[in-house]
């Protein structure tokens, strides 16, 4: 119903605006714009189309202060814990509570006070409410330059530590030069029972003929609100693969804004989301084909249990000149309980005629015939379910090229399913 509503600011919105009014932050054009946006529109909510299913106005109960108390002990503590995933021969780049701490390996890393972020971001997603929130608070930008020649392996290790609520806004720019080949592993891990909020904004600038494989694992704490924005610009003949495994956080939203700027770019996005309890897990992606002859494939699988909610929003945009685009998107969901919910919105927005684009979406429960088949062979129902679910998630994980990572991801799925069997 289109009744005009008087918007009343939520406590979280009040807290955010009060904090921004305190000052002490560098004035840049981007920040001013972001703050003005927040002031006018508040947090993204269900009236904003892109946030219809993830209403931050209700999901974000409060706005904890940005983390400031960095000490050597904190870094030491982070170092003593294990990462969500380990990777041999990787250049390890550590972030503690949103701030770049150190890196090992041959990689050019520059960590600096944020200049005008919009210049780097190209403002392709400046309209997003969560990105505005990030820009209003983010302080520093870490820039990684991936050299050409041999294959580089980078592990971006994000750790959150602390016992009181806090918020972090790391910003990372990864420049992949012409012809480079890189594997980027991004892991997030944080404490349980602490209602911290984190929003990592990572921007990839991929030059022509460069190749990127990106794998993201989100194991944020069970009370965390974890937002993530991945911005990707692809030049001609660049290849970009990204996979995301999401099982952590109370509220998680991973958004990808990808643009193909040159011809023959190849894009592969995939993900597996495991949600239980009262978790809310959202993946939102916009693949913008602005150049001809590019190919994109999206493949997402969701397993939603208990009272959890899954959200998948995928949008393929084909600009008028992007002829010969080949786009395909698929999202599939298994709901394991009658109180679980899934919202699926696969969108096509096409302005060129010589294209082949399609999407498919399914939602249902486990196949009874398959269960029966397993049951008839003496496998107890709970284990049979786990077996089928493992295979279901596994098909998405198969899209990960690196074997070392793939194995560890499968282990994580098995762990998740084992917990289900136990309970």
């Amino acid at each position, binding site marked *: *119903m*289109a*009744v*005009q509503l008087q918007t009343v600011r939520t406590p979280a919105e009040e807290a955010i605006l009060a904090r921004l009014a305190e000052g002490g932050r560098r004035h840049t054009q981007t920040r001013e714009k972001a703050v003005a946006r927040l002031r006018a529109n508040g947090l993204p909510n269900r009236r904003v*189309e892109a946030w219809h299913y993830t209403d931050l106005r209700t999901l974000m109960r409060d706005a904890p202060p940005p983390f400031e108390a960095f000490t050597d002990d904190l870094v030491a503590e982070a170092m003593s814990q294990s990462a969500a995933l380990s990777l041999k021969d990787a250049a390890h780049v550590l972030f503690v509570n949103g701030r770049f701490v150190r890196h090992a390996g041959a990689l050019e890393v520059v960590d600096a006070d944020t200049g005008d972020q919009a210049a780097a971001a190209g403002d392709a997603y400046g309209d997003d409410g969560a990105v505005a929130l990030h820009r209003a608070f983010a302080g520093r930008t870490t820039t990684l330059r991936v050299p050409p020649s041999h294959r580089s392996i980078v592990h971006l290790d994000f750790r959150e530590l602390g016992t009181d609520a806090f918020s972090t806004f790391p910003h990372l720019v990864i420049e992949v030069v012409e012809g480079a080949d890189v594997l980027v592993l991004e892991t997030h891990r944080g404490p349980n029972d602490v209602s911290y909020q984190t929003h990592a904004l990572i921007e990839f600038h991929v030059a022509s003929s460069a190749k990127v494989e990106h794998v993201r694992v989100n194991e944020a704490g069970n009370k965390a609100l974890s937002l993530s924005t991945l911005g990707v610009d692809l030049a001609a003949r660049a290849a970009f693969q990204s996979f995301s495994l999401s099982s952590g956080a109370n509220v998680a939203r991973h958004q990808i804004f990808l643009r193909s700027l040159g011809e023959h770019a190849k894009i592969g996005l995939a993900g597996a989301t495991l949600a239980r309890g009262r978790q809310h897990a959202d993946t939102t992606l916009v693949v913008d084909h602005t150049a001809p002859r590019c190919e994109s494939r999206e493949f997402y699988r969701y397993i939603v249990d208990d009272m959890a909610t899954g959200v998948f929003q995928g949008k393929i945009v084909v600009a*008028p000149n992007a*002829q010969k685009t080949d786009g395909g998107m698929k999202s599939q*969901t298994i*709901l*394991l*309980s*009658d*109180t*679980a*919910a*899934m*919202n*699926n*919105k*696969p*969108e*096509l*927005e*096409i*302005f*060129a*005629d*010589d*294209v*082949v*684009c*399609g*999407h*498919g*979406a*399914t*939602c*249902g*429960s486990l196949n009874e015939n398959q269960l029966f088949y397993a049951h008839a062979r003496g496998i107890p129902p709970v284990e049979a379910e786990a077996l089928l679910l493992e295979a279901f998630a596994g098909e998405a994980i198969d899209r990960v090229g690196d074997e070392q990572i793939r194995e560890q991801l499968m282990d994580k799925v098995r762990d998740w399913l084992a917990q289900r069997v136990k309970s």
Partner: protein
Amino acid sequence: MAAVLETLETVKSVDVDAYKYGFVTDIESDKAPKGLNEDIVRFISAKKNEPAWLTEWRLDAYRRWLTMTEPKWARVDYPKIDYQDLYYYSAPKTHAGPKSLDEVDPELLKTYEKLGIPLREREILAGVQGAKVAVDAVFDSVSVATTFREELSKAGVVFCPISEAVHSHPELVQKYLGSVVPVTDNYFATLNSAVFSDGSFVYIPPGVRCPMELSTYFRINEQNTGQFERTLIIADKGSYVSYLEGCTAPKRDENQLHAAVVELIALEDAEIKYSTVQNWYPGDSQGRGGIYNFVTKRGDCRGDRSKISWTQVETGSAITWKYPSCILRGDHSRGEFYSIAISNGRQQVDSGTKMLHLGRNTTSRIISKGISAGRSSNTYRGQVFAHRKADGARNFTNCDSLLIGNACGAHTVPYIESRNSGAVFEHEATTSKISEDQLFYCMQRGLSAEEATALIVNGFVRDVLQQLPMEFAVEAQKLIAVSLEGSVG
């Protein structure tokens, strides 16, 4: 059917032959002043001699409407509508139309010719002065009304203008009006509730299979009464009805804004089949003029095992904003939506459906074929929802888009929301262009590029055409070819 009734009355009161010689009768020419306020709403209600409850109902809607804002979410773009600059009541009148076919836009006449419309009918469609009333009696709708009215009443079927039903069947109207599309449903539905002009009322008694297809086909006077149409169809337990609306011929219309509401109610084991062919004036090639079509159509499968099926062929209007929906409330109820939406020139279509699964073992099927050509924009927007209690709900959605030319846009925006693990939803969508191979094959066999395109497009939409009642299907096929003219080569 208002037109039919009026015409019959007029024809009765005047010697029919007089019309043949261009005799013009002054039927009624009063018109409410421009603008909208409570007095206008009361005026409309008074004109129709409505009971007090309906006047209040309209006023309540009007007051609600004042607090609402125009929805902006659809992918359509049009200049702001000044609602105070419109006439909300104008009785049928002999207006100053073109005096003969010579004064009519030759483009329009060419189209009539292609559709094979007889000369006499062309005059009426183009709104030539004096032609209007006389020919009414010739048309199918009138013959349906006169010849078959008796047969219908024998079967117990009520088929009359809603303004008449308010008096003849007040209990049914009061019980069902606004029960599917509530007064406050959306901006345009609320506006319609306040100022609705007229429309059809259908009631099929229990166990009756309506002996004929009900049609408002070729409703000539619609020009002046149809701006805010209101249709209410009730199929009582175990009954069946097929209702056809619209007309394949393009039509001039002085009312730019159309905001109709259609409500369907299917009780236990009942089935309603609602077919639409819409071909209103789409505006000229520069996008000037053209009808704004903001329609709210919704069916409520209230009883168990009931079924509602929407079939639409949308080729006209400058702006189409239309989402025929089904509320699947009864257990084992079924909803269907078959749609062909063709946009050419600068037309903008934002259309689709909603299937709301509330009952157990409810099923729905959506087949949508969008074809965009020229500089048009064609959007499918649909929602499939399963309620927590909708065990065993099943949906299959297929929306395909075809693009002709590189200046048009085709978009798909589905919302698939499941709250039940026992619900199975499948959705697929594709977008592509006409295959070069197919075109080449056809042209090699002597078809022109245009004919080949029409042939291939007809194949593309065949699934939907098959759902149309026979008499519509043939014309719709021709219409598709005509609608796509100028899009190739």
